[in-house]
């Protein structure tokens, strides 16, 4: 893989009942997908607090992926519906902080959809490559001082 290519760093939240099992199935089936996503196991996609997502971006993530059971299949009935309601609102908030909504992905992966899980990671990685690095955690301008001369026209 070309090394100079931008390698986005993705934090993933996988629900234990469906997506994590789906990811394991992708593993046992040896389906290859890019290594950019490091998954975190939660009991349900409903457990993913928007604060986690914001914290991940603040600490340098280029993208955050939340994977849960298909609506109606949630082991706890309503968890994925809560995730489905929180994500669009969170996307609008992120956009106002200059973070493109495409950097947050909510997807449904059932326990038997290993192939779909891998495909989701591939498409998300490519999207983030197109968007380029976010590096929200990069320091602010060195002196944090605005060099006014740049903006002021020659008087």
């Amino acid at each position: 893989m070309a090394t100079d290519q931008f390698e986005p760093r993705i934090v993933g939240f996988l629900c234990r009942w469906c997506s994590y099992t789906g990811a394991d199935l992708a593993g046992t089936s040896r389906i290859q997908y890019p290594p950019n996503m490091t998954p975190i196991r939660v009991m349900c996609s409903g457990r993913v607090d928007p604060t986690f997502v914001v914290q991940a971006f603040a600490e340098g993530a280029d993208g955050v992926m939340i994977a849960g059971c298909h609506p109606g299949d949630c082991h706890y009935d309503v968890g994925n519906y809560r995730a489905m309601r929180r994500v669009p609102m969170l996307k609008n908030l992120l956009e106002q902080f200059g973070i493109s909504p495409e950097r947050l992905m909510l997807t449904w992966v059932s326990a038997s959809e290993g192939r779909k899980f891998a495909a989701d990671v591939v498409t998300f990685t490519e999207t983030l490559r197109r968007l380029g690095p976010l590096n929200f955690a990069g320091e602010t301008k060195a002196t944090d001082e605005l060099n006014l001369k740049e903006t002021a026209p020659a008087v």
Partner: protein
Amino acid sequence: MNGTERIGVYVCHCGTNISHTVDVEAVAKYAAGLPGVALAKEYKYMCSEPGQDMIQEDIKEHDLTRVVVASCSPLMHEVTVRVAVWGAGMNPYVFQMSNIREQCSWVHSDKRAATEKAMRLVHGAVMRVSQHRELFEKEVPVHPDVMVVGAGIAGIEAALR
């Protein structure tokens, strides 16, 4: 609760299933340098008898307070390691498993990237386990009746048994 923990990290080869793409030694060495890590080892088969005995001895010898096992999926061997650490007197819920096989070595071919990812996963597990608290299981009674849904030959057999 943080920084005062003595964490034991065990990175598994799983024969070659993990080590064929993840440089297990490098991951172990990286883990040794992480805050709170008292010792970091790698071993061919963590889920084997000797693998579990090693954990138990280390817990006693180095009085470890937390354990991280980087190997296969928790859905497979989480219970195995819980029993092992419990055997050595450590609360079974202060250990964390890091899935560097199904979600790392088996699905990535680029050795460098896979090793780096394994390191990040182990780092995440170490940071997480240092925040873990001791938890205690609850026992509940089991109702003696059983319900069989469906009365084909399989259901009939189950009911009769």
